[in-house]
């Protein structure tokens, strides 16, 4: 009972923090709300008219939604890069960063689920997927694996920080015995969500562009580059706008993670390109389409030729210690790396899988306004959730939020 009371007061206090803030904060939240509402309006159009309002067709049947879903799974998985050293290796440096990282994971996972639901033709019968009342095609369908691991990961990333914050809120220390097993588990889990998501595509013999053994490992490498890159950017912003202290050492360590992952990612990219272009087979056509266009159809060229130089530039810059330790350069690198991987793993991965079609037909795909609107809305939703989570966490960590301070 007492716990419940404490929890209630935590929720009340956090609501209080969320609704109060500077003008800039209110502007930011107002802006996000506006974008979310616009996205909801776009989604209502989609519900009314069906998925025909998107750019998807029978020839290219997955598009922007699934691209973003794939990318965001990677972002969610990256939180683990911070979890492990902090909780398990007792590296104090990361302690503040990790709560932010887990908040990011929660936001990313909710966005993932939102993107999947936005992509469904029949959201009203989604209960068919709930084990028990529906039919859950486990273990045959990789999608059911994905549903399981994503929700499990969401649960882990909600409960661990909640427990820690809950203890800190009451002015107590969190007991390592309670959260360390959870942290361990989430380390494996993070690898699993990413590998399983890769297997979703990798397991389709119909699509040679996806059906290659490197897809899973490359997913991991790019995730561990893009995710922490985003965390660095967020930490930079938080450092600037709040009193939350994040040491340079922390950011530098995360930058190291980003660098190594980006390097591995680049090596794998080279290996993939070598295979596709040194001895091109019939199965290399998708890669040809992606990088050079086929039969005059070249909608993806601007995207991929933005992504590749950005990726290479960021990786090279990050490789030099001097440059990496300069925060201006670091933030710039993280930003372009994030964009590059978003393109490469979203658009650059999903769309060419369908082009050329099973019989060589090249039908191009371009997202429509409605689709972009829904996508922006979901991103705004993610940012909104993250802001709320981060604000509460920072409040508690700074000691501003405490349970019945007066009584103590």
């Amino acid at each position, binding site marked *: 009972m007492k716990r419940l009371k404490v929890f209630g007061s935590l929720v009340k206090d956090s609501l209080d923090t969320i609704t109060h803030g500077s003008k800039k904060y209110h502007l930011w939240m107002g802006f996000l709300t506006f974008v979310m509402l616009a996205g909801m309006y776009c989604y209502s159009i989609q519900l009314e008219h069906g998925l025909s309002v998107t750019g998807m067709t029978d020839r290219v049947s997955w598009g922007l939604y699934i691209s973003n879903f794939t990318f965001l799974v990677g972002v969610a998985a990256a939180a683990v890069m911070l979890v492990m050293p902090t909780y398990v290796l007792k590296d104090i440096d990361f302690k503040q960063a990790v709560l932010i990282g887990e908040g990011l994971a929660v936001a990313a996972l909710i966005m993932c689920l939102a993107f999947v639901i936005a992509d469904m033709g029949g959201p009203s019968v989604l209960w068919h997927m709930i084990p028990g009342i529906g039919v859950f095609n486990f273990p045959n369908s990789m*999608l059911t694996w994905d549903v399981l691991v994503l929700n499990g990961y969401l649960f882990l990333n909600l409960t661990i920080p909640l427990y820690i914050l809950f203890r800190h809120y009451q002015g107590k220390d969190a007991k390592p015995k309670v959260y360390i097993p959870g942290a361990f588990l989430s380390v494996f889990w993070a690898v699993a969500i990413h590998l399983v998501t890769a297997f979703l595509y990798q397991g389709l013999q119909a699509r040679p562009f996806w059906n290659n053994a490197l897809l899973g490992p490359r997913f991991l490498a790019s995730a561990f580059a893009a995710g922490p890159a985003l965390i660095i950017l967020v930490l930079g912003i938080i450092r600037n706008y709040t009193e939350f202290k994040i040491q340079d050492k922390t950011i530098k360590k995360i930058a190291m993670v980003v660098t190594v992952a980006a390097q591995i990612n680049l090596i794998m990219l080279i290996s993939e390109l070598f295979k596709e272009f040194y001895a091109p087979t019939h199965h290399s056509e998708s890669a040809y389409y992606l990088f050079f266009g086929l039969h005059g159809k070249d909608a993806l060229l601007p995207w991929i030729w933005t992504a590749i130089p950005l990726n290479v530039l960021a990786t090279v810059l990050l490789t030099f210690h001097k440059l990496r330790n300069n925060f201006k350069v670091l933030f710039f690198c993280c930003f372009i790396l994030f964009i590059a991987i978003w393109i490469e793993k979203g658009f650059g991965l999903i769309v060419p899988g369908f082009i050329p079609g099973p019989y060589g037909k090249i039908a191009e795909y371009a997202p429509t306004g409605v689709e972009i609107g829904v996508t922006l809305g979901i991103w705004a939703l993610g940012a909104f959730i993250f802001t709320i989570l981060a604000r509460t966490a920072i409040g508690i960590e700074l000691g501003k939020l405490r349970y019945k301070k007066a009584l103590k």
Partner: protein
Amino acid sequence: MSDSNNKWFSLNIGRKDREASKSCSCGKTSGGCGGSSNAHHITEDEFTEAAIHASIGEERTKDGFEQVFDVKMDRRSAFKKLTASLLIGAGAVSTSCSVISGDESKEKAQIDWEEQFKGNYKLMTDDEKKATVDRLVRSYQLRTGKTISMSSKNAEDNVLFGYAFNISKCQGYMDCVNACVEENNQDRDSQMQYIRIHEMKDGKGFNFNEADDNYYHEVPAEGHFYMGTQCFHCDNPPCTEVCPVQATWREDDGLVVVDYDWCVGCRYCMAACPYDGRRFNWSKPEVPEAEINKNQHYLGNRMRKKGVMEKCTFCVQRSRAGKNPACVEACPTGARIFGNLLDPDSTIRWVLENKKVFRLKEDLGTEPKFWYFMD
């Protein structure tokens, strides 16, 4: 209706039951079963039996070759079948009208409720299958005042459907495509077509990359040959494995089908199909009332809704009633051959044994039941 669905429903009894119900689910009798008040039961059954004999009795004795080439005969029997189904439809109206209460909107709501929360067709017992089919027929009647007939006929024993395509004969007329659209109630707005005819240049081999599957000119075009593709009803279908809710599966007679009411529209199966065999309802499918084919099967050409997957079913409403699929019947050149692979006397078996047949993308291990051959 499903209260007789007990745990002790043993296999033998089930089979017997299926045998018995076979006669009244031959494609057009669910109306008759639907109104099943006990008093009418026997007469209805007799009526049905007679009607079925009138409609497809002839085909039962025909072999595959005649079915393919004797177009006239088939049209006649199709006409007969249509008349028979109309008769049965009328019978259903009269019986059901005497049973129902006046409160139609209440019934409509009840049906909608039960339809929204019904289970996966694949896992239903025969009684439940019949119940849902009856509900759908009734719902259509309440909404439009028209009667359709919908079958829930199961796969028969010792049947495995297969298809062969004669590349030398096909001239690209696309009659099959049109017949398919009419038979299967596909969305007219988006011009959904299950069959694609690929026009290829002579001397280039089977070069799908340079083929045109969307031509609008007079055929046969000089220097070209034609090849049709559709769902190949793979014996080891990758599309069914990936479905998260088992809304699509391989039936015992080899047909790969979709339960349109169970599909959640994730389109994973579409990505998994190596043969471009699946079509998605991107918007609400529209078929003019006058053009609706009212002879339906739950797994086949019944009306779909938006946001669900569909595909060629080898016209399950026809093939399980002993007829050829619409494309086979419509083909003016006789390039299409359909039949039971387990029947040693069938035409399809003759083709497989005497022609040099091949299949597409055999390296994928999907085992399509769709063969190509040349004269």
